[in-house]
């Protein structure tokens, strides 16, 4: 039934004509519609509940700040943590994916793949608990070293945190969390590269790296960006792990290793929501809307990049 709602597909061979095709098309399009409805539901919910929070005056909310002043540092913190996570995770993830797909001994590669997938199996609460009881105390000497040797860079201006609960620690935890997601997708894509291209490159005398550079990467580029975006989505929205690890304040600072860190939106919601009431709840939901919009913008940019490069990618 829903097929009537669909616009006529462009190419003749794709036009569903047989009954089976019509039903199958209907189911597929229906599924897509469900996503549309869900998203519309979330958006309506966020907007309807959020707008009173945006328009509330400073003295009506607990923070005592106008909404832009309140959400600004949170946006900064969210982006900072996510960027740290991606900068750390994506190169490693590509390396790990290449290791599994092309460099490791063939017989062991699926075992290695499974091992990395285990990282994705760790629940975020465990990451948070691990971050605060193991990573943070362990990494304190490193922060002190950064402060002593690289303190002239604003990023490491210190004074270094005594407990290690910094935005850099949170970023590292996030990086570990997104690593398996990015790795798994990159790996599948690397494995799907046409075997003939790879063999042709090798036959022409290319080294393994040259083969990867010339036959695998061009084919996988859109997939890598896509995988990174998926990772970014998780890093932007991660709630509990950040809330448990970070020592936050409402500030904007480039300093990565002090105990005064910008908070992220999701973590702030988790920390403030239970004790919130009235318009403060609306302000928190509005900050959720802001997070939503940020992801929207990031994805928009990513899509634009992928689409522009499509001509060069190997995917027909």
């Amino acid at each position: 039934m829903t097929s009537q709602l669909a616009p006529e597909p462009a190419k003749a061979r794709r036009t569903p004509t047989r009954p089976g095709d019509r039903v199958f098309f209907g189911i597929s399009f229906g599924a897509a519609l469900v996503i549309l409805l869900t998203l519309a539901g979330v958006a309506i919910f966020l907007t309807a509940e959020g707008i009173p929070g945006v328009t509330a005056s400073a003295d009506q909310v607990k923070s005592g700040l106008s909404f832009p002043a309140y959400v600004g540092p949170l946006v900064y913190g969210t982006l900072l943590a996510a960027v740290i996570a991606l900068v750390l995770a994506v190169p490693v993830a590509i390396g790990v994916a290449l290791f599994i797909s092309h460099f490791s001994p063939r017989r062991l590669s699926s075992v290695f793949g499974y091992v990395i997938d285990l990282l994705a199996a760790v629940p975020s609460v465990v990451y948070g608990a691990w971050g605060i009881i193991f990573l943070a105390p362990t990494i304190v000497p490193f922060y002190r070293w950064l402060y002593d040797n690289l303190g002239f860079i604003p990023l490491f201006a210190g004074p270094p945190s005594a407990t290690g609960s910094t935005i850099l620690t949170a970023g590292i935890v996030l990086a570990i969390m997104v690593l398996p997601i990015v790795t798994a997708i990159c790996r599948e894509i690397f494995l799907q590269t046409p075997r003939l291209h790879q063999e042709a490159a090798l036959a022409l005398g290319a080294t393994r790296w040259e083969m990867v550079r010339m036959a695998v990467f061009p084919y996988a580029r859109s997939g890598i960006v896509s995988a990174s975006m998926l990772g970014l989505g998780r890093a932007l929205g991660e709630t509990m792990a950040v809330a448990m690890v970070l020592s936050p304040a409402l500030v904007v600072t480039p300093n990565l290793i002090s105990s005064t860190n910008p908070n992220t939106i999701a973590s702030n919601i988790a920390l403030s929501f239970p004790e919130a009431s009235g318009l403060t709840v609306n302000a928190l939901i509005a900050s959720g809307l802001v997070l939503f919009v940020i992801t929207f913008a990031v994805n928009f940019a990513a899509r634009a990049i992928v689409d522009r490069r499509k001509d060069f990618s190997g995917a027909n």
Partner: protein
Amino acid sequence: MTTTDPRPQRDRDAEELLSSLRGNTLPLWAPRVVVGIAATVAVLGALSSLGVVRGVLLGWLLTFALPIWSRVVEGPRKATDRLVTLLVYSAFSLALIPLGSIIWTVFSRGLSVMSAEFLTYSMRNVVGEGGGIYHAIMGTLLITGAATVISVPIGLFTAIYIVEYGDGNRVSKGIRFLVDVMTGIPSIVAGLFAYALFVLFFGEGVRMGIGGSVALAVLMIPVVVRSSEEMLKLVPNELREASLALGVPQWRTIAKVVVPTALAGIVTGVTLAIARVIGETAPLLIIAGATDSTNFNLFDGRMATLPVFAYTSIRFPGVPPEFSIDRGWGAALTLLVIVMLLNLVARLVSFFFSPKGER
């Protein structure tokens, strides 16, 4: 030279020609020796006053001798290849460090409470020592299972629409974009949304397991769509065209050719999606609530889940706190083991069901 070599001149010429074509190469044992030396230095460094971190770093830096050596003997192309190989191996080892550390932390803290009683008892009427997580295991399996049942058909069919029917038209681009946006829904917002949705039907204060499933499904669907979409796109067009050319209807082509070809990747994607949501705490805290008793009914009443149980046990321990915190780690360990098993099952499924090809 000529006096000692008994072979005819022709053979010697051929060898010379070959080696000039092949160029100089490092002996086969070169990487092993370099890595061996580096490892020895790392271990010695770790045991000496340098400490573990500096020792390992020093050892790692030493391995770069291999590409440098290769640069001298083999030339830049081979050296780059060796450098990249080294970096790729390093990346993998680096990823193993946190994994090992986390697994060690969870096992060393969680194993002490593990027992038959722990897995078969609930927390009803338990204060202090004892009790178990049976209620939370059941809750997690039911809620995540229902979330999977909701999101896999929706996610897979949406991916099929985007790749097979949409073919880059505006609607499919729009839906793909919306899926991207959906990946950005923070888990806590998904929980609030599910709560608001269920309040519409059941009134204020509603708590039921299926609400948790809906919240998790909201988080799961975009992951399923994105990974399935990538996998479907990688199915060579030649396969589709061959099938269609034989007169097979498109839906049968999709069901019999396209999806089976991509199945391994799809299953990996679904497993990842489950792993992504099974540990979610925030949304379940809001909509599924928590209880000390076992509840098998998804559609009525609060349900305990492992992540929520682990979170509350570690965050709000009683007095003395040790018992509760131990139980929390035990729950985390159980959750980890469940997902490991799930991963294993998915791998077996994709191994046995995907078409036997070059992989």
